């Protein structure tokens, strides 16, 4: 809970109050909502974008949609969860299906087993570095990995949301994991 100095009210503001204020198109409440969630949503946006500028564009479009359609939030889940979905949907809006057909050469020799315990180098990685690793993934890998591993969509949902085959989603995920593992192991070598 954050303190809303700029609302000129002394008590913490609940999400419900923010929503009511946004429904009234009250700019102070909109700004309060932005400040409360912009940081977390920027992280979501950065995961789907190739660079920071693109991430800011996505976040801007997402907030416009949030304020335009706040009446569609029915309060069944958390406000944050709904806003995250809007950001993800905004990021997916302009996804090119060709992104999912690109093959990366050089991953053939990487181990398929990415489900075991992680090397110690993982523990040393900072969030900023993880974001960079994700951003360096090819578009298709990055989107599927984000949707499956972090957002928690399953392959059927990803298939439907992106208009691709489930098998494509599965293969993109496997390749994304391999590539991330490969990059992290490279970091380890450099560090050693």
């Amino acid at each position, binding site marked *: 809970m954050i303190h809303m100095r700029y609302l000129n009210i002394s008590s913490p503001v609940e999400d419900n109050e923010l929503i009511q204020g946004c429904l009234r198109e009250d700019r102070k409440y909109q*700004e309060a909502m932005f400040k409360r969630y*912009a940081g977390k949503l920027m992280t979501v946006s950065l995961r789907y974008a190739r660079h920071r500028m693109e991430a800011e564009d996505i976040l801007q479009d997402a907030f416009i949609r949030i304020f335009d359609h706040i009446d569609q939030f029915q309060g069944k889940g958390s406000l944050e969860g709904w806003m995250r979905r809007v950001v993800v949907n905004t990021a997916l809006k302009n996804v090119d299906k060709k992104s999912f057909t690109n093959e990366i050469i050089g991953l053939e020799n990487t181990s398929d087993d990415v489900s075991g315990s*992680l090397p110690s180098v993982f523990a040393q990685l900072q969030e900023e570095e*993880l974001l960079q690793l994700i951003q360096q993934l090819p578009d298709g890998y990055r989107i599927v990995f984000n949707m*499956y591993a972090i957002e928690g969509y399953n392959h059927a949902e990803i298939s*439907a949301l992106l*208009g691709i085959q489930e098998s494509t989603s599965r293969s993109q995920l496997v390749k994304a994991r391999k590539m991330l593992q490969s990059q992290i192991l490279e970091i380890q070598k450099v560090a050693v």
Partner: protein
Amino acid sequence: MNPKSSIDEFFRRKLSNYEVPPSDSLWENIQMARAKKSKPLAKGWTKWLIASTILITLVVLSNEILIQNKKDEITQTESVKANNNETNEINDLNPVLITKKPISNQINFPENHPPISPIFNPDSLEIINESSLSEVKEKPISITETIIEKSAENIFPSFSTISTLDATLPHELSLYSEYLPVPFKKKLWFAKIDFLLSQDFIQNTLKAKTSLFEPYANLRNEYEDLKVANSLMLRMGISTLKGWGLRSGIQYSRMQQTLAFQVPDASNKRGIKNIFETIDIPLILTKEQSFGKLRAGISLGTYLNMAFNQKGSFYSPTGTLIEFTSSKPGSYPAFKNRLGASVYAGISLSLPIGNSLEFMAEPYFRTRIPSISVDDYVLDQKIWVGGIFIGLRKQIGKGFYLP
């Protein structure tokens, strides 16, 4: 489903609550962008506008049909009055009415029942010429004699008095509605559109309600051959991830019936092609499941049927041919009402053939629910339609969440 790997867990744990502040100018940019963009007028209005349009169209359409049916009845009554003076002329064309007495003593009509007469217009039947009609004069159809022999006291002023015994024809169905509970649970929805063509096979049986009309039922069953139809359907549907879906749309069907016309010398039969056209609105609940690439499902629902056009002739209980072509003024009004319903069951099978595109086949079965006006007919008609829809299914856009 792929198991969650340790890499997935690692990234989720580290990033799910991580915050990166956006640039200072972002809030200003959002405000400016919203100020430029006018609030869309539609938003909540669009769906209400669409729903209202559909509702109004249905109401207007229903009224038109009811008014038309009423007009038909009035026209029919007036034409009977006008034709009373021409009875002799009609009888000249219909030797049965001259030579045999009718059977109405076994039929209880209300006293004030309007005398309604079918119109037998030899000029309106394209393939019946004057010569064939004269042959009819010379040899009455034997089935009529059978009917008449069963009648002890024959008081049959004219064929008009059995107008309420309208011969049963396909799709004189009643307005019918049914609530379909839909177990929607998931929030993520998908919209799909089906474009389907079908070849239908029809099993049509007519059964007399009383023994008196058994010969008539036999006549109709023997000479009418309603077997095939073709349909074209545009269907839209929404479905959940779990495969539950609701589909509706519009279907146009054209049924062809061959009516054998018995030429009196008994050496041959001539065929008259009858056409029945219907517009149907399906409302179907589906449950689908994936089996590898194949997606199979069960479809159950109702059809709202509306017969909007028919062309051709049928046999009356006296064995004469009556034209019921809807576009011709004075034709016999074959339908007591044009709206009805039927029950639909099908098995849908689909295979992906491209991005968001599937090839579809749906073998189906449909049977008509008895019309509310079923008691007005002397024959009990049962229609079973089976066939297979073949076509394409296209997913529209991506998945979406309902508000």
